[in-house]
């Protein structure tokens, strides 16, 4: 093991480096200069994001505990990009007086959770996976409670930490049985002993439940809405996009790599979860008035769609899932960006507050409209492609009824997305949110998102690239 091989951990190491730099910066920055840390953190992270796009060899470290493939590299880049956009969108919020003290903490916490996700993605054994998950979760609770003078935020924090602790308990209990029946915590060694005896399946189901918690699948989703609503909006967008994406991806590759031989167990399992998730998520989303909560249920429903791709179990499945996530990053962050900008300006987060928004803020409305259409899967924006391909993945397995349920759910989801559209474009308000100028970092972030929403769907090269680096159950 030489130093050069550490380059496989390039992204993680750079992120750790940024955390250290920020720690030092925090110590040596005067109080009145704290806001400069925002620039520092964002720029550093931007550079890291760019660096991570450079190609890198595949390989593994630490006896297989840390594995990196082009797929994981790509996924990490996607996550980095998402986080970068979140940082851009957080600038105004961080500049608030009450957050002045906590700027570097914000960056450190987010980046450390990101490090956790990176390890989770690259993990080669259950221990690393578990540590990654915890690293990605525990600081998240602190982030959710970041606005500590807000009761909602505090509530979000406690709900997140307690339920996630329970879920890691469940997950671990499952893992203990998997360890007990396979004799190893290393993915590569486990595989040979995977069969579906009841105890192992017991463990497997508990493991799935634990992961499902992170991806917020029904019935393990209950924390999601409350936490999303209570957490500061930028944390919410981070949670809904990056955290969920990483968990889903990890879940998928572990299913493929470790449990590939018992597809006949997890396909019906995921089938059930997918149906429940989409349906319940949509039914709840129908009635929401708070946009953050609304987006929470929307993202639950979206998670149900992801399962359709995961179930496929082949390269097609992985490609579609990753493709979906990539698009989802842009789409959801565009939506959250707008919500965040408006919330930052006016403090309003209810759907009815958006009445007549188009008249006062046409551009923001249009961006939100595009994002919502993309979430609903309406052409020509990217969401259409990603959703269609997910359905195709399920179709490849012959799950046509599931597709039907999914598409009907997508139709229901259209209903509530259109509710927001209706508020902005159709409904009249006497006191619409006033016209305002969005700060430039937000604009850049929205620009990136919109570009993504438009381009990724049509640019088949991206899909082809993902396809070329995907793998399935072998």
């Amino acid at each position, binding site marked *: 093991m030489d130093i050069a091989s550490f380059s496989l951990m390039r992204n993680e190491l750079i992120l750790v480096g940024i955390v250290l730099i920020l720690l030092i910066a925090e110590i040596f920055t005067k109080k009145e200069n704290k806001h400069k840390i925002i620039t520092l953190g964002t720029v550093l992270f931007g550079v890291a994001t760019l660096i991570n796009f450079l190609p890198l060899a595949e390989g593994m470290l630490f006896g297989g505990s840390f594995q990196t493939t082009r797929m994981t590299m790509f996924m990490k880049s996607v996550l980095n990009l998402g986080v970068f956009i979140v940082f851009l969108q957080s600038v105004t919020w961080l500049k608030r007086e009450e957050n002045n003290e906590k700027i570097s903490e914000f960056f450190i916490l987010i980046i450390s959770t990101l490090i956790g996700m990176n390890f989770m993605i690259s993990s080669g054994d259950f221990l690393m996976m578990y540590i990654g998950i915890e690293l990605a979760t525990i600081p998240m609770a602190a982030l959710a409670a970041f606005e500590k003078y807000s009761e909602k935020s505090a509530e979000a924090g406690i709900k997140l930490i307690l339920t996630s602790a329970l879920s890691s308990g469940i997950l671990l209990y499952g893992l203990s049985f998997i360890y007990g029946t396979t004799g190893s915590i290393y993915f590569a060694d486990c595989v040979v002993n995977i069969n579906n005896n009841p105890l192992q399946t017991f463990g497997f189901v508990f493991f799935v439940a634990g992961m499902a918690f992170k991806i917020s699948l029904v019935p393990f989703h209950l924390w999601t809405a409350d936490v999303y609503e209570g957490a500061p909006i930028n944390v919410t967008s981070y949670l809904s996009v990056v955290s969920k994406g990483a968990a889903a991806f990890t879940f998928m590759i572990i299913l493929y790599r470790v449990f590939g031989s018992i597809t006949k167990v997890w396909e019906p399992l995921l089938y059930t979860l997918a149906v429940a998730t989409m349906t319940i998520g949509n039914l709840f989303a129908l009635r929401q008035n708070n946009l953050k909560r609304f987006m929470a249920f929307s993202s639950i429903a979206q998670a149900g769609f992801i399962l359709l791709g995961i179930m496929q179990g082949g390269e097609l499945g992985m*490609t579609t899932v990753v493709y979906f996530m990539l698009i989802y990053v842009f789409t959801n962050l565009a939506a959250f960006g707008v919500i965040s900008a408006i919330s930052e300006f006016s403090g309003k987060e209810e759907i009815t507050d958006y009445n007549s928004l188009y008249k006062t803020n046409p551009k923001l409305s249009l961006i939100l409209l595009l994002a919502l*259409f993309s979430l609903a899967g*309406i*052409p*020509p924006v990217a969401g*259409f492609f990603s959703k*269609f*391909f997910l*359905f*195709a993945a399920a*179709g*490849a397995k*012959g799950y*046509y009824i599931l*597709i*039907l349920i999914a*598409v*009907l759910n*997508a*139709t229901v989801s*259209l*209903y509530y997305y*259109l509710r927001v*559209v*209706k508020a902005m*474009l*159709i409904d009249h308000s006497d006191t619409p949110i006033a016209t305002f100028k969005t700060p430039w970092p937000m604009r850049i972030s929205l620009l990136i998102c919109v570009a993504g929403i438009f381009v990724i769907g049509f640019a*088949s090269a991206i*899909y*082809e690239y993902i*396809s070329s680096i995907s793998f399935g159950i072998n």
Partner: protein
Amino acid sequence: MNILNLFVIIPVLTVIAIVFTKDFKGARVAAAVGMSLQLLTAIILVFSYFAQRKAGITGDFLYLSDYTWFKTLNIHYTVGVDSIAVWMLLLASIVVFAGIFASWQVEYLAREFFISLILLATGVFGFFISLDLFTMFLFYELAVIPMYLLIGIWGSGPKEYSAMKLTLMLMGGSALLIVGLLGLYFYSSAAGPVTFSLLELSKISFPIAMQRFFFPFLFVGFGILGALFPLHTWSPDGHSSAPTAVSMLHAGVLMKLGGYGCLRVAMFLLPDAAQEMAWIFLILTTISVVYGAFGAIWQKDLKYINAYSSVSHCGLVLFALLMMNKTSMDGAVLQMISHGLMTALFFALIGMIYGRTHTRNIDQMGGLMAVVPFLGVAYVIAGLASLGLPGLSGFVAEMTIFFGSFQHPDTFHRVATIIATSSIVITAVYILRVVGKLLLGQVREKEYLEFPDAKWYERISLVVLIVPIAMIGFYPSFLSSTVMVALNPIVERLTAML
């Protein structure tokens, strides 16, 4: 470059042009210019297409071109037209063109209005030129969604409700479609790599069990847009709330997507199941035909009347398709074109009348013929076309359908045909009722006397629709025979199994 691409490029460029206009005047001029070009392109296409045919170029589709899009999924952007598609494109161009002029006076968010309208048109054009089911579906959905905004923002009455209902029902339809399309896609693996290509799929004979499963998805999926009973209820509400141009486009063109899809995708690709299950849908469509007509009798709102009438007429399209012989299917295509033109004409007129009277309730109108003779005469022409007067397009289409359907050897089908023919009387009843209440009799309100007759832009819109109605009515054989040629492969596939 392939001329067909222009059908997508021109609208997109028009949209971009509209974005840069300053006010509603600029927007509508830009839209009008763009759509005039579009109409011109369509006309050129018609001429060059038939010139090529005359020159002896064979092949089911002309102007084929194919670009690989998603390579691993084998999704292509494939375009090509046969004569049905050519006529449909022309129809769509005419209706869109007329629609722009019919909405000349839109001022509220005019740019957005025209952009949405043209986006809708893009979807329609794209749908007709596509030979790849994926892009076809993409354009299909693209055509459906702007409807929501168009109805919701610029509509009238319970517009939010109607818009939502329409959108959700149509999206429900496309939910079924997705299942069907994916079924076709994956089962195509029996004959090589999976594909969405219509040309490839049409060479495969799918196992019957698979056909039985997927045919209803595809047929109902497209059928919803074609107002298949009992899934037509989006249509009355949707139409009545929609602004003029949208009703025109929707009833005139968008509903044709349904019929066209049933023909081109559901029946063409899954012929055995089509043969086997036709009777179920035949019952439904027969009900549609009569039911829609009876439904129209009772209505008071002009748009509702026309919406129900559309249910009846579009029911006839599906009805004729299900008869599955060349003549009836030819009639179905003629009916699509004819209904497209005349219902667009109807909605244009209703919009113009509404713009003057501010009511659509026929009980509150009367004697308008004396006040606005141009509109009145146009309305009568539309009405006569609708009730199937010889010399106008409706007659040709209906007769072709009836005579085609009646050629069916089964008594069941012929009895259904006879039931369907009865719609011509019921149609006459409601059309005359409307004409009587709306146009004839004494002028009902004093203020009606002040109404100006049709403005120049209104006249353009109307004339552009009336002329083809009359042309088809007078000289149908070219249209009819060219459509027949295009139907050959479909009918062959449908009857090969018998």
